[in-house]
Each structure stands twice: as structure tokens, then as C-alpha cells.
């Protein structure tokens, strides 16, 4: 029997349970399932790639979160340190003598190789602590001092003891000295707080992200305080006030285009305008923030316009209907209702700006700077440019530090996105 039959009077009877219809329906269900599988496959691929990225970063980066330290007793002799001029004492010799005391029977010819095991800056670390607290003079204090990078690698097992001596950066004798120190219980490997509280350094064991984190912070502040108010004001004008004509169409097209312009172009623009014309200094977060603001502005305008548009017109009409002025309609009703979405978009825009490298390279925020900036007018690096610098450095210790810095950057990005998601869920409204 055919699935559809037309009777004499023209009415049609349909046999829904016929094989033809059953087959047709099962094909439609199969299409549903295929669509679902494509989606699952896509998500699995994305998650897999993400897992590979994170795993490889963690594998190379985790060692940078600890640092090999040596605890050494230093006698801060009155004879060698003038209480009135703590800074001027011969700290190099004081510290070296303390190191020598830890390994008895050291020959003069070996001293150079021996001292290379400790960070080059050890005398300054000791000096700074005693300068900060002069009461220490006349006592014997235990100082915990970072080991130099090759020894750090050795302690972490990154350098294989079985490789021939000529092919590794620590000699057999240095290994013997290190084992000697370890036997005396002088070696420890605590959490590497220096990674977060030190600024950049030539020596991996001393290099940290403090300068990069505060540089990124200041640049993002500048970026936020410029792009957020400008973006919202521009979006409100375009959405609520601007007449619909050729000029506003042109502006709209251009804003959408700006959002797609490669960030390196904004870097060049900032270089030409802010540094070239306005003679602002290079490498400062102010210029970096301005470049990032140029980049973020179109995103914020687009997000704000979309969220203003998504406020139901019934709210607008309700306010107009009781005689609210345009300003009141926007400020009391439309903008507050659109704000959660605007904030979400802004945070995502800022997260993008945080990870942006190219414009910062062009305006010189990849300089080697050894102290964190105190404000937006002091030279600084930023997190992504710090990663760039470290990735470029030959020392073995910077390999793991680069991965660690990427993990820190990802941590900030995840935090920002989590805040965005939280805001969206907390303030999401249904009408």
C-alpha cells in the first residue's frame, strides 16, 4: 500500500507507519545524531589540544616554581663591618669567606669554580638585608642564598650526572662540592617566591616576574580607563542619538574594521603618534596602555552597542511613556540593564589586551629592566613581552622560567575570564 493515497473526493489518507515514512524518519533522526557527533568531536579536539598545551607547559615549567638555595652561616664581624657605613663594607670577601668555610680544604686555584656555584649577586643580597636591619652586625646569621643556574639544574635533575664532564655545565668537582654541601644539610629547595617578587635579571636564579606583572597591571589600567568610558560613550551616541545616514554607516563599518586590524599596526601607530609626535618616553606603561586601548576600543564599542540593543524596547517605552527624558531612559534603565554584558565584554577585551605582545614590542616594552615600575611613567616590561625576552635568552634556567611565566599569564587570563563568567551569571536578567 502506498504511503499517501488520494481518495476519489480529493482527501488524502496518510499511512504514517508505512515503511517509506519510517525510513524517512530514521534518516532524519540519523542526521540529528550526526550533527551531535560532529559537535562532540570538535569539542574533544579542542580539549585535547588544550590538554597538550597545558601539559607541555607544566612539564617544562613546574621546576621553575622551586629554587635551589644554600643556607650558609655568615659572621657579621664588627671588625669587618663599620656600623656607620654598613653599605661600604667589603661584602664580597665576607660572603666568600663564609662560602669557603662550608667546604674545608678548598685550594686557591679552585676558588673561582667554587664561587661560580652560588649566585653572582650573593654579596648584594646579604648587604641589602644587613643595611635594612643594622642590628644584625656583630651576630652570626644564617642566610639562604640562591644557587647559580647550572647547580639549580643539577639539583633538579635537569643535568644528567652520567653525561661526560665536557658536555655538561657543571664539572665533576662542582658536583662533589655540591654533594658535600648537601650532606651538611645546607641545600634546600623551597617555593620560588623570587619568581613573583623579583624583577628581571640576567641570572635565571634571580629573574622574576614582578616587573612584568606590575608593568602589565599599569598598562591595563591605562587601557581600561581610556577604552571603557570612551567605548561606552561612543556606543551610546551611535546607538541612541546618531541619525542613520551615510556618515554614521561609514563610522560603523570602520569600527568593525578596526576590530579586525592586526595589533602590530596599533603598535606602529602608537610608536608614530605617542612616541614620535608627542615625544613620550619609550617602554612606559602609559604608551603601552594607549596602544592597547586603541586595540580594545572597537571591541568595547561593538559589545556595548550589542548589549544596548538587546535591552527590550518595552523597557524603553515604559520609561518614555511616563515622561522620562532620553538621558533618564539611558542612564536609569538601558545602561544599568546592559552593564553586566558590557562588563563581561570589557573584561574579555582586557584579557585579550593582557596577552597582546606585538604593540608592546614596537613601543619598547621588551627592554631589559631590573626594577618594577612604580607608575605609568616608568619603563617596564609586560607579561607577554617578558615571556618573549626569556624565550630569547640562552641560559638553561630561562627555558623553565618561560613556561612558568606562560602559566602565570594563563592564570591571570583564566581568572579574568572567570570573573566575566561570574558577572554574566550573577547579573543575567530575563524579561
Amino acid at each position, binding site marked *: 500500500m502506498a504511503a499517501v493515497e488520494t481518495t476519489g473526493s480529493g482527501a488524502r489518507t496518510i499511512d504514517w507507519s508505512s515503511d517509506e515514512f519510517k525510513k524517512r524518519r530514521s534518516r532524519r533522526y540519523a542526521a540529528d545524531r550526526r550533527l551531535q557527533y560532529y559537535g562532540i568531536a570538535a569539542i574533544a579536539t579542542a580539549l585535547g589540544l588544550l590538554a597538550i598545551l597545558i601539559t607541555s607547559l607544566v612539564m617544562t615549567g613546574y621546576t621553575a616554581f622551586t629554587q635551589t638555595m644554600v643556607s650558609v652561616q655568615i659572621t657579621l664581624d664588627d671588625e669587618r663591618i663599620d656600623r656607620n657605613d654598613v653599605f661600604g663594607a667589603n661584602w664580597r670577601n665576607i660572603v666568600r669567606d663564609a662560602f669557603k668555610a662550608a667546604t674545608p680544604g678548598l685550594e686557591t686555584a679552585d676558588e673561582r669554580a667554587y664561587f661560580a656555584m652560588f649566585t653572582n649577586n650573593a654579596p648584594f643580597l646579604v648587604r641589602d638585608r644587613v643595611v635594612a636591619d643594622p642590628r644584625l652586625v656583630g651576630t652570626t646569621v644564617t642566610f639562604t642564598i640562591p644557587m647559580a643556574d647550572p647547580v639549580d639544574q643539577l639539583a633538579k635533575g635537569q643535568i644528567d650526572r652520567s653525561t661526560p664532564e665536557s658536555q655538561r655545565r657543571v664539572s665533576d668537582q662542582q658536583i662533589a662540592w655540591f654533594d658535600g654541601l648537601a650532606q651538611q644539610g645546607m641545600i634546600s629547595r623551597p617555593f620560588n617566591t623570587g619568581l613573583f617578587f623579583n624583577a628581571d635579571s640576567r641570572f635565571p636564579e634571580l629573574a622574576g616576574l614582578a616587573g612584568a606583572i606590575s608593568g602589565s597591571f599599569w598598562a591595563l589600567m591605562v587601557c581600561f580607563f581610556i577604552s571603557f568610558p570612551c567605548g561606552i560613550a561612543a556606543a551610546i551616541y551611535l546607538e541612541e542619538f546618531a541619525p*542613520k545616514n551615510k556618515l554614521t554607516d561609514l563610522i560603523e563599518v570602520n569600527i568593525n574594521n578596526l576590530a579586525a586590524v592586526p595589533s602590530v599596526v596599533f603598535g606602529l601607530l602608537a610608536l608614530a603618534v605617542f612616541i614620535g609626535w608627542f615625544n613620550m618616553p619609550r617602554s612606559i606603561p602609559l604608551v603601552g596602555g594607549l596602544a592597547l586601548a586603541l586595540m580594545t576600543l572597537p571591541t568595547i564599542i561593538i559589545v556595548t552597542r550589542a548589549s544596548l540593543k538587546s535591552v*527590550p524596547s*518595552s*523597557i*524603553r*517605552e*515604559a*520609561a*518614555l*511613556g*511616563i*515622561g*522620562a*527624558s532620553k538621558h*533618564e531612559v539611558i542612564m*536609569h*534603565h538601558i545602561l544599568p*540593564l546592559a552593564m553586566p554584558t558590557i562588563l563581561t565584554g570589557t573584561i574579555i577585551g582586557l584579557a585579550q589586551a593582557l596577552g597582546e605582545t606585538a604593540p608592546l614590542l614596537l613601543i619598547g616594552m621588551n627592554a631589559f629592566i631590573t626594577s618594577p615600575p612604580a607608575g605609568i611613567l616608568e619603563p617596564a616590561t609586560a607579561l607577554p613581552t617578558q615571556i618573549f625576552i626569556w624565550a630569547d635568552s640562552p641560559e638553561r634556567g630561562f627555558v623553565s622560567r618561560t613556561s612558568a611565566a606562560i602559566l602565570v599569564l594563563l592564570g591571570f587570563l583564566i581568572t579574568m575570564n572567570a570573573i566575566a563568567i561570574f558577572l554574566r551569571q550573577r547579573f543575567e*536578567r530575563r*524579561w
Partner: protein
Amino acid sequence: MNMLTEASIEQKLSPMKNEPRIKMRGDKVTVHYGEKQALFGVDLQIPEHQVTALIGPSGCGKSTFLRCLNRMNDTIDGCRVGGKVTLDQEDVYDPKIDVVELRARVGMVFQKPNPFPKSIYENIAYGPRIHGLTKSKAEMDEVVEKSLRKAAIWDEVKDRLSESGTGLSGGQQQRLCIARAIAVSPEVILMDEPCSALDPIATAKVEELIDELRQNYTIVIVTHSMQQAARVSQRTAMFHIGYLVEEGPTDKMFTNPDDKRTQDYITGRFG
């Protein structure tokens, strides 16, 4: 504003009872949406303290005409209004007229209940606050209570004024919106199918309310329901594809209309 309204009640009770004053008047009103003409020379008078119902099939222009009365059409891009609309002999479309004042005097209730996503109290207090109608918190409390009472919703919400207006039922939301319109003490209230989203019980309540409000306000209501027009209005105007077909006292319109189209529409033959 309150005093004004009360004064006008007395005026209404005075001799001219049989010949109510004309509150609003449309004179050859035309409306274009871009190229498309939606209204063709509508002449209509809205008598004071009466309910005027605008009826007609979908797309006939009754809502368009209603929105001309408080210039809500201004917000629609490409909308042009011709002819003349007056409120107490004042031209509503005069460039010198203050739209904010006009909309305060001619309030509006919409098809879908649209309370602000704020507390019930704030919903009512918002209008009086932006217009500066109250001097103190106590006075504001009084305005809020009075408005809610007039909208016959006070007893249902008095214990939860700080809760969100969007949490009320549809019928309560619509009465809240009516209370919000009343709070500004308008002279005219425009209602655009106020019961179309409500169930029969809520509709009955709102209709009862409309009848009471007529004492103090002039009401223009757009409705798709013939029974509703018959129940609540004193005058009815029938629209069809942009033209005013006929208008007159409601009882006459429903028993003995002059135009065949009105006859057909009312008896359900089209529309």
C-alpha cells in the same frame, strides 16, 4: 498635579454634564512609516472623562493613532506624522512643545506588561521622582500607596513593596503598570490592548479598574475584543486599513452602526 485633577473632577460634575469637554482632538492625522502610509486623515475627538475605544482588525492603524497622541511614534525611525493633534487646544506636534511634559500629561499603558526590573515601590516612585512631584519620603510613600490603591493592587502588594515588579503575575504586572502611569497624575491615559496578554480573571479586574479610573482620567483604549469595547467604553471608533470608518457612542455603534464594515466587524464576519 493632584489638585489639578481634583479640580477637573468638579468641573466635570458641573452643568456641562451632557456635553463633555473635548480633551484631545485628531485633525486629519496622517502617518507614514518610511514610504508606507499607515493612517489617512483621521479626525477623532476624545471627550474628557470618558473611555474611548479604538477597534478594528489588525494593521488598521488604531495603535498608530494612539501612539500619535503622546508622540510615542517619535521613537520609530522614519515615522512622519501629518495633520494636527491637540491636547486642550495645544498642538502636540508644535516644535515648541515639551515632549517630556506631554508624556507626563498623557500617560501610557502597553500591550505587554512592562514593569521596570526594579522593586514595586521603585516602579511607582520613578515617575514622580524624575518629575520632582514630591518633596519628602513621606510624601512619596503617600503617592505610591495612592497610586497602587487606585490601580486596585495595593492589598496584593502592600507587604512586599521592596520585591521586584517582574515577580508579579501578568495581571498584577499590568495593574502595576497602570499604577505607575497614574503616579505621575496624567490627564489622559492611553492603553494599547492592555488585556491581550492576560487571562479572563485578570482581564475582568483591569476592566473594572478602567471603569473606575474614568472618574479622574480621560482614557483611550485600543482593543481587539468587541466585548471589552462594549463593556468599558462610552465611545467607540472603528478603524479599517488606515481610515476611520465611523465613531460614535458605544451603544449606538454596537446596536445600529452606520457603516456596513462596522456591522460586519462587530458581528465577527471579518477581522
